[in-house]
């Protein structure tokens, strides 16, 4: 009796399905699916890599640089514990925006935050304290090395700018000198980092990535991304009330955006 009850219903269903309504339903579904995919694709393209990261050691001047670029004014700063991000209008005539993200430079935080934001990075500004550089060269090189061998960074190859900050102080080293020293240091680091004992879970600390070309001395031109060196001063040579000296940086940002 059950089967008999179902039969006429099934017949009705079959008749319904054969009509042109089926085709329109199918087309509607496909349209929705395609729109959804396109939307996701566009979203992905748009939101990925709109960010410019400000990296560097503690006290390099990243937060002040961030404040100057966004508001033009001098602000007192303390050691950052979390990231700050804001939209930066690159120049008055163009309407392109980038998201400036200021990451903390403290040793216990910087790798964590780099992990979080590296996938979204379109460009990286590595801020270096030109005054303390001589003392800190090994730490600067180590952080730069960690950024450069990161697999996501190597894959996306965001443009890299090394901003030699604090040029308003007379003892500041020039960008040329900093570039040479960093190249030498990274050259040594390649060897020592890859020779370090392997990590606990088996993955090597330096990653299978080799920085630059084997056999030749390390040079920034060997990297897959464009690297530039620029001098700047977030504080400005006229003291706190004056303008900051950020021309090179702003020009580069305009280029990259």
């Amino acid at each position: 009796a059950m089967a008999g009850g179902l039969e006429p219903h099934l017949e009705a269903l079959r008749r319904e399905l054969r009509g042109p309504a089926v085709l329109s339903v199918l087309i509607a579904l496909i349209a929705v699916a395609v729109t959804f995919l396109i939307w996701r694709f566009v979203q992905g393209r748009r939101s990925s890599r709109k960010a410019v990261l400000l990296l560097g050691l503690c006290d390099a001047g990243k937060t002040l640089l961030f404040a100057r670029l966004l508001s033009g004014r001098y602000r007192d700063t303390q050691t950052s514990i979390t990231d700050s991000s804001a939209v930066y209008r690159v120049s008055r005539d163009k309407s392109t925006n980038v998201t400036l993200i200021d990451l903390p430079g403290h040793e216990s935080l910087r790798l964590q935050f780099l992990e979080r934001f590296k996938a979204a990075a379109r460009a990286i500004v590595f801020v270096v304290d030109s005054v303390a550089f001589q003392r800190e060269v090994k730490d600067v090189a180590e952080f730069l090395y960690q950024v450069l061998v990161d697999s996501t960074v190597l894959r996306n190859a965001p443009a890299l700018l090394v901003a030699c900050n604090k040029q308003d102080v007379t003892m500041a080293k020039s960008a040329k000198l900093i570039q040479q020293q960093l190249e030498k240091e990274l050259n040594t680091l390649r060897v020592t980092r890859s020779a370090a004992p392997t990590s606990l879970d088996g993955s090597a600390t330096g990653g299978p990535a080799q920085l630059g070309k084997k056999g030749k001395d390390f040079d920034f031109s060997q990297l897959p991304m464009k690297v530039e060196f620029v001098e700047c001063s977030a504080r400005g040579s006229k003291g706190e009330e004056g303008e900051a000296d950020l021309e090179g940086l702003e020009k580069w940002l305009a280029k990259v955006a």
Partner: protein
Amino acid sequence: MLDFFTIFSKGGLVLWCFQGVRGPAATAPVNALIRSVLLQERGGNNSFTHEALTLKYKLDNQFELVFVVGFQKILTLTYVDKLIDDVHKEFRDKYRNEFQQKGALGLLNGTFDFKDDFMRLLRDAEESSKVRAPTVMKTFEQSLKSQKTVKCMIETRGEKPKEKVKNKKNKGSKKDGTEAVAAPSKASAGDKQLSVAGDKEELTKDEILQKNREEFFRRHMKAGEKSRSPKPDAQKEKGKKPRVWDLGNSNAKVLDYSNSATNGSAEACPVEEFDPDTALGDKNREPGRLYDLEYESDDEAEEEKVVQNPSKPSVKKGGLGGMFGMLKGLVGSKSLTREDMDPVLEKMKDHLIAKNVAAEIAVQLCESVAKKLEGKVMGTFTTVTSTVKQALQEALVQILQPQRRVDVLRDVMDAQRHRRPYVVTFCGVNGVGKSTNLAKISFWLIENGFSVLIAACDTFRAGAVEQLRTHTRRLNALHPPESHGGRTMVQLYEKGYGKDAAGIAMEAISYARNQGFDVVLVDTAGRMQDNAPLMTALAKLIAVNAPDLVLFVGEALVGNEAVDQLVKFNKALADHSMAQTPRLIDGIVLTKFDTIDDKVGAAISMTYITSKPIVFVGTGQTYCDLRSLNAKAVVAALMKA
């Protein structure tokens, strides 16, 4: 009176600053506060001393702000805590818009003109601390004593001593009983009532029996809490019972529990038959044999059962409130309060302790995470548990990240360039694996082309020098001089047993300098951290020879002891050093890592206490079992359920 008051965002922008009368710039002390307290997860207590200043701080986790006040250490200002709270509330309410709507740009562009409000609050706080009338003593009429009747305070002479003694015994046993019962089931209301009833000295024989019966039922029948709590209530409502003072009205017969026959008689107890079998117990015992400790797990099982019962009523109580809380949490506008986080934090703390993190460190960590999360607004579809777990995970990774560079090879290369040997000293308690790991590290250094001189400064333990000699022989067999351009890659410098370790170390270092060795590895004797003369000797060795790297070798199996060991070692090194900045432990070698599966808590304990990095991890006894620490893997193993 304040030196400064700063308000800044967690992203580093100073929003408002107040400089006191003669205060120096606030930046340096606040930076020190951030780096030593907030970033090292020591945020449990909210005050910090830096040179001559005391700094108190408060975090606003909702808008990501930090409020810091600094004043001279010698002053004790009582109004500071209240001032911070008031300023926090005012500032937050006044500039709520900037924070909520504009984010970072609002912080950058906004002007925070807070001076007038702050001065007002400061004045109020100062005045409130000054104005306090001296407390007036209570008059006799107001005290409780005047309301007692005279009769109840009369003591009858004759019966007093015996009853008093018996009373004390009863009180003692009753208190023990209630305490032992109360201890495993702290959170239950029923127990509190019982102990309160017990304290009220209303005990007649009947009530004692009643209570014992109740305990018996609860322990063995697992009766629910609710059935018990009406009973003390019912007893109390039986009508107003007159107070029965043991000293007063009751007679001795009621309180005399001793056996009638034995009161003072010479033959104290009837002569029992001495049964050697029952006395000696086990019939199959071998004479002279020493048996192992028998582990009794019955008590623990009982305590667990008792604990589980009380936890049920508290869960039922939170039912309806929890429902609303959960819905609100789903919507995403709920801010975390201490009460929400406490149960989760308790569980996480127990989990950490189960994973071999030292108990006090687990407590401090959870406190710090609670401080960091209090008031934070949770995102959509996140539960309290997941937020707390996430925060705890970040805190753990943060602790394990090295605060300074960990690259031994790079430093050895530096020392090579300056034509002096790089000296590494290994210290630690007995039996943690110093000599074994020293051999592993020298193998690693040889593989990288550096020549090693091993200084045998363990002149106490029998066989220490022979052990190192065997290692040297093996390493030379693995890396013969022929394959390294005729240079012996590893050599042992020893002077036998019984000599002064510091002297041997000094001679070894100058020998290495003359012979052109790249690295000197100094092996010291194991010593317990509270053995003062040995700790002095170690401190002297390190102070005199000024090694480049002082490595503390600790085993991963250690539990709460790790804290004690590291603290005492550091203290000894600091006390006996003549220099302005004493050489402390620079790094940690974590050994026997293969013996623990995922109970990796010792790594956290050690890095938290010293804030120095774990340089090497030893995972076995062969030369290749040397690893470097991977913070993420360790934290993953820790957080795994």
